[in-house]
């Protein structure tokens, strides 16, 4: 490619990369790699994975249904961890957002008329927030989701 994406400051790839890098350095700075107990390692892994998801979702903001759903999930999870009571609060507001999007995109279980119900349902489970989408939007979201996933995977961030 003559114009690498990461040079473009506004591209998805650059946004994701900067965010992810920031998150990773924060994680590495937080915790020295001391213990090798399974739970500790697992926690670290979870943190990194969450950081990756978060960076990706934040790079996309609310432009996409799946990013909104992902952000809601991350937020609700973090709220639940911090404060059990606030989970209800955030859950309600976020659910209102989700319901709004669901009303825009018609009902959840819907015979699309093209006969791909099983595959469409499976895809809905895979793509975050896909339960509330009709097939048309689902395909759209899937395309963007795949694009973001590949961006995340092929980011130049090393692991050393």
């Amino acid at each position, binding site marked *: 490619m003559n114009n690498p994406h990461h040079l473009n400051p506004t591209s998805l790839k650059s946004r994701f990369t900067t965010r992810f890098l920031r998150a990773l350095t924060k994680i590495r700075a937080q915790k020295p790699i001391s213990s090798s107990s399974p739970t500790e390692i*697992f926690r*670290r892994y979870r943190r990194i994975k969450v950081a*990756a998801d978060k960076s990706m979702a934040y790079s996309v903001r609310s432009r996409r249904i799946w990013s909104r759903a992902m952000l809601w999930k991350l937020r609700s999870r973090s709220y639940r961890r911090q404060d059990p009571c606030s989970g209800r609060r955030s859950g309600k507001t976020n659910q209102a957002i989700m319901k709004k999007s669901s009303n825009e995109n018609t009902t959840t279980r819907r015979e699309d008329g*093209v006969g791909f119900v099983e*595959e469409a349902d499976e895809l809905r489970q895979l793509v975050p927030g896909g339960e509330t989408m009709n097939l048309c939007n689902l*395909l759209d979201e899937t*395309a963007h989701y795949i694009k973001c996933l590949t961006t995340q995977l092929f980011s130049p*961030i090393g692991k*050393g």
Partner: protein
Amino acid sequence: MQPCSREMQAMNSLLSPTQQIPLQDLQPNGNSGTHQAQIHNPQFDPTSSHDDFLDQMLSTLPSCPWSDLKSPWDPPKSDETPPSNHDNNVGFHYDEILASKLRQHQINGGGGGTTAAMKMMMQQQMMLPGRLIAAAGGGGLTMPLHNDIVDGSSFKSPNQQGGEGSVQALYNGFGAGSLHGTNNQSPNQPQHFHHPQGGNMQTQSFGATAGTVMNQSQASGSTTGGAPAQLKQRVRARRGQATDPHSIAERLRRERIAERMKALQELVPNANKTDKASMLDEIIDYVKFLQLQVKVLSMSRLGGAAAVAPLVADMPSEGGDCVQTTAGGGGSLQRNSNGNQPSANNDSLTVTEHQVAKLMEEDMGSAMQYLQGKGLCLMPISLATAISTATCHSRNPMINKGSSSNHPLLQSNGDGPSSPSMSVLTVQSATMGNGGLDGSAKDAASVSKP
């Protein structure tokens, strides 16, 4: 070339008694000696008068009663291979009977007969369960159907010149169903046998694709069909230009879905499927694969001197799959994947497997560390197959596969697979950039190495 299927063996045994006689009788000059080769040789050369052979067989058949069949079978020829697969069903026995009957007729040289008798024999053959080989019935004229095309040609060619009408009648009598309809007595018999099968398959596949096309066209056709049914005064809409708003919306929706599918096709590898359902399946597998890779990458991004430790991945998201993966520190893993991995052979892997199994029984941590030392990790086979089927070209992260049970399937080589039944991936850092998936796991359920 020896026949491998039962039918082939049956044919072979049937051929040997029946063919030898004509060869001896009718081809004194010709291809004697290598009867076996002749049988399998599609260029069986009817140099001499095979018409006589055919007429002989056809004529002599009806005169002999069925009870006489058993006797001529007793003294077999010296180089004749007795039908070895007696465990087959009754039909095969009847084949032998017919073969012997024909031989007897040939030997006796009986009087005239008609093709009707042959047809009767063939139909009796047909009624035998499961066995449609009536080679002896035709004296090598009719074919054991779909499998033995080579023998079919060898059967056919001797009788091409003479008695074509009778042979054709035999064929028709024998069963159009199994032989894919009537066959022409043409020199290129093998191709003809292939073509009906290929044609059937092609028609089936074409029917599948046509079905989807038909669905769409039917839907649009129905829209145009609906319009004239309502009012005569309304102008009949052209096909694809229905005036009904519902149908227009429907059509728009379908078009949007189609264009989104096309956009997805470019993103997903192996997107050469024409069927929408299979395309969706590909997309699903690809998304699963990408999500899995993200997980693995985040594990390998743990980084640093964290030597390895067992990770119990999130159970709920895996849907109950117990994923135990280990990921070495980037540096150590890098070394491992570049280092001595190519030297791993089957023996060392087997040893590794046993070792890990032993370790697993006592302590997961030590087992995982042992794996890590070799640059391996564990994964459930279902996920690993998802990876291997999702993409075949290079990907940065590669994951070793195992099973979630106590029998890990290990292969450490990232560069060259030592066994094609396992797919081997090693975790690599993204900076390496030379990942590659090798092989593919054929059997997701099997754990042991072949």
